[in-house]
């Protein structure tokens, strides 16, 4: 069943800690960050590791000249725990164009104290 799916209340979500839910046959990870709520498919598009056990950060390495290291702080980054592939938490795109595979991402809506994940295909 597509559309909006309740995944808890705002108070249920510890900052930067994923909670998972099985929605419409999909394992979805939902996280509250300083930049809002985000929902991702919990399986890494590489080899299926549990992305919700990965490292969530606000920094990664920006493209630079050789042997210069420049931090990028313009996005939230989720790194897979198995092979450290990094994905943009908002878009699902791989950081650094290391692959064309994307992490699945879903819109999150907060209505009052309730948190909903919108899955594609339904009108909610």
């Amino acid at each position, binding site marked *: 069943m597509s559309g909006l799916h309740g995944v808890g209340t705002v108070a249920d979500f510890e900052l930067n800690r994923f909670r998972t839910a099985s929605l419409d046959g999909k394992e979805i990870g939902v996280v509250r960050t300083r930049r809002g709520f985000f929902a991702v498919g919990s399986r890494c598009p590489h080899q299926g590791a549990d992305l919700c056990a990965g490292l969530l950060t606000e920094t990664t*390495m920006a*493209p630079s*000249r*050789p042997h210069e290291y420049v931090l990028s702080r313009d996005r939230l980054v989720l790194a897979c725990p198995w092979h*450290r*592939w990094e994905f943009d938490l908002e878009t699902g795109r791989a*950081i650094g164009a*290391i692959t064309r595979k994307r992490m699945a991402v879903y819109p999150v809506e907060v209505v009052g104290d309730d948190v909903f994940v919108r899955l594609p295909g339904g009108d909610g």
Partner: protein
Amino acid sequence: MIDCELHPLIDRLEDLLPHMDEATALRVSQSEFRLPPASPHPGVDVEARRLEGGTDPVAVAASLPAAIDRALLVAAQAMPTPGWLDHGLAAAFVEAVNRHLVDRWLPADPRFRLAIALSPHQAPLAVREIERHAGVAGVAAAAMPLIAVAMGHEHYHPVYRALSERGLPLLVHPGGSEGEVLGAAAIGGTGPRTPEETFTLLPQVAQANLASLVFNGVFELFPELTVVFAGWGFEWAPTLVWRADSEWRGLRVAVPWLRRPPSEVIAEHVRFVVDGAASALRPGTWEHAALLPESALVYGSDAPFDAVGPEERLALAPAGLRERIAENAVSLFGARG
């Protein structure tokens, strides 16, 4: 077809003396200095090759197969300098070798092109050598042996800059002392004890330097540079490329200057010579070749050491790849071909 690896042999030290300053000439002629043998090639005697005409440019030109349009001269005797402790002498020696080849070999046949030899120890001396000869008609590349400083190190940046600015590819070739002499490129593990180990493990040196080039961002800094591995084989390259791509994906934060997979960088900037060091006469070798980008391979005879004409060496290459190998060399040298 361009032969990207033809070794001109130098007959006698006396041939080089006119190309040295008087002090250096006196020093080498009245000391223990000896003209290096063609040591990268075990079991090959310069004297024996001299008798076969390997030191005579006219005879060598006459022996070129009909299919060869041009032949790049790579002075094997200028490659053993990594083990020399006198870096100034090494630079003076390769300068004399280059002057001799420009003077005697290039005019001998319009098909000859020259890879000017570089001594790798001191970049300013190598740059001076590039500046000295890059404007000479027929100079189409530079050739350098490898030392214990890997090719990704900043040590070489002035050399890469000078080559890039002049459109000269850099060919790297074994020098014969890899893994055996302090200062020469190392071979891993505990080091070889026998020549058989050395030559079996020689591709390690190329692997280490290729990885160093790619991961240290040399081609990001010098996007016009092409590096040609000659004398190391190529069968080992596909697995290195796969591994490099895999490591890059997971460890990109350590090399954020690499904005595309190493395989793409290598396809654009690196070539491997199918010469005597490659097992080109075994069918299985070409299964490896098929795993490399089509841009990767060029042909080299390795004459006079392991002289095999292009028809024979590439006989087992898949249809279409032979033509591509020929085209790759044309692209490699561009206007300098």
